[in-house]
């Protein structure tokens, strides 16, 4: 009973990690860039949607049908908005640094992360905001087990979007171009693939999915803060690396795996060690597992082995 409850919790946080990890992994796959500003897309998603939902709901106690639709549209709109922010970021910061020494775009990303966090902190203040529990806290009985409605929405929505992304990458023209670019930049350019549009598309999709992750995270835990993107972004990044950075299915696998690891490590650690090592070592377990996995599979669980594609040829400086 409690085991199932815990598994559902693990899967919902895992789904959020996976959503964010997709943005990291797609950008890395094509540009070989560690986009450190991606965690801020997650944060912006929560803040934009908070503001929009507040406009829709106002001070009314009970919600009308129209307001329900309004909330849905607010979430959608904030994801699209953040997608545009991510595109803008690519256009202004990363594109001029394309083909430059590899650490330069990394530094640009770090700088933008500082900028975005501070813009939000200055405009709304450094406090913690209470985020509305959008999907209600009622439990739904499935086979005699009560499951939190928010968890069902999170898992359902994320899985549906990840499947849609996979179809998009496999079937659509832009998707094929993106995969070609990820395969080999030079060859893709040689056969006449326009590179700016697919790259912009990646940033848009990644940013929008990250923003949705932010909405779901804030709705699940009921809080948000300007600095929330740092630690969750780091976890999602870990998930992407665990699954094999550059691999879309890998990011999904890594996200769910990290969610499970964290939740169960937190529960089991005190029991296994007789209280010597407590739940506060949860993140240590996550990182230790990452290190062990990388020792045995240096490219992550589903990543391509070293030596293929452009990544290994590209100089660091």
């Amino acid at each position, binding site marked *: 009973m409690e085991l199932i409850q815990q598994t559902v919790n693990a899967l919902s946080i895992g789904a959020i990690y996976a959503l964010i990890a997709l943005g990291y992994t797609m950008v*890395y796959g094509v540009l*070989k860039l*560690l986009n450190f500003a991606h965690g801020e897309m997650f944060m912006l998603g929560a803040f934009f949607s908070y503001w929009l939902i507040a406009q829709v709901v106002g001070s009314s106690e009970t919600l009308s049908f129209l307001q329900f639709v309004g909330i849905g549209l607010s979430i959608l709109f904030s994801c699209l908005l953040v997608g545009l922010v991510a595109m803008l970021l690519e256009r202004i*910061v990363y594109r*001029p*640094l394309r083909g*430059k*020494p*590899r*650490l*330069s775009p*990394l*530094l*640009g990303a*770090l*700088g*933008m*992360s*500082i*900028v975005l966090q*501070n*813009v939000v*902190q*200055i405009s709304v203040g450094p406090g913690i905001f209470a985020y509305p529990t959008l999907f209600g806290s009622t439990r739904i009985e499935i086979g005699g087990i009560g499951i939190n409605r928010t968890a069902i929405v999170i898992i359902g929505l994320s899985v549906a979007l990840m499947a849609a992304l996979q179809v998009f990458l496999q079937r659509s023209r832009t998707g094929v171009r993106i995969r070609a670019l990820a395969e080999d930049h030079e060859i893709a350019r040689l056969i006449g693939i326009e590179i700016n549009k697919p790259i912009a598309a990646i940033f848009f999709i990644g940013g929008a999915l990250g923003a949705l992750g932010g909405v779901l995270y804030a709705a699940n835990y009921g809080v948000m803060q300007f600095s929330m993107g*740092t630690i969750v972004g*780091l976890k999602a*990044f*870990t998930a992407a*690396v665990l699954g094999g*950075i550059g691999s879309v299915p890998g990011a999904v696998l890594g996200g769910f795996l990290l969610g499970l690891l964290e939740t169960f490590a937190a529960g089991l650690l005190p029991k296994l060690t007789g209280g010597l090592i*407590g739940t*506060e*070592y949860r*993140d*240590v377990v996550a*990182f*230790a597992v*990452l*290190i062990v996995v*990388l*020792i045995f599979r*240096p*490219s*992550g669980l589903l990543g391509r082995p*070293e030596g293929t594609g452009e*990544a*290994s040829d590209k*100089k*660091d*400086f």
Partner: protein
Amino acid sequence: MNQPHPFPGFSHAIVRWGVLAALVGVIFFAVPLMAKVYELRVLNNLLLYMLLGAGLTIVVGYAGLLDLGFVAFYAIGAYSYAILASAQFDFHLPFLLVLAIGTILAAFTGLLLGYPVMRLRGDYLAIVTLGFGEIIRIIINNWNGLTNGPKGIARIDRPDLLGWQITTPRDLYLFLLVVVILVYTLVFRLERSLLGKAWRAMREDQVALRASGVDTTRLKLLAFALSASIGGAAGVFFAASQRFVSPESFVLHESILIVVIVVIGGVANLIGTVIGAFVVVIVPELLRGYQDYRMLLFGLLLVLGIILRPEGLVPQRYGIGWILKKTGWR
């Protein structure tokens, strides 16, 4: 030889020695006499970050391995001193002994981390080192029995150098200045040595180097251990100068700042590292008047700087060697 000399008249030995003497006079005598206590504290901070920058330059700059967990070694050095020379456990080992212990411990940890992860390519290494940094921080934060947890360790002994008690910020400034000059000389010699050349070759083409029979794993481990030892030593100095350590000082943000120091000034270039430390320590101080907008402006300057000068502020070829050559020292 037919080219006009970039600094005319500088080749005269008297001029050269004169400029050097003036430089020494300013940084050793004028600055500590003129600067206020607050300014000296900022300068000491600058010197510490210059040390950290030199340490990370070895791994990131010379060997081309992206290390995002450098602060872990800094923490190990700092906590070595805090535990072995404070009222916490009533151990009061002499400063120089702890300096040796902290340095060796950090180097050893560097090897321990380096050994399993050597097979990893650049970006995987980045996340593993980042994770390692977090692991160390979490352990420090929670191992209350040893580190006193989030409360940190206070009442750390003043450093005592064979009878010279370092008490004022002025003493500390002079002491750190000498350390920085020593470490930079050492690292510069390293850059010029065969080892330095091997690191550069590894950075440019690892496969070719391995094919010519060089053991790249050993090279990487050496880079890790040497840079970690400088990080550990810097940690000991940090603990001795603050006389208080807590996990707050060793967060990921700190590692990232050190990477910024190494990259923004110009990678694999010690002059660039010095300038990077100025950017990271002095620029936020100068922006202090803008209060809330300080970090925002800092971030914007960082982004603008890297877009305008993607190779860093000082390109690699204009290093210490270039200055020495152009001014006729070599």
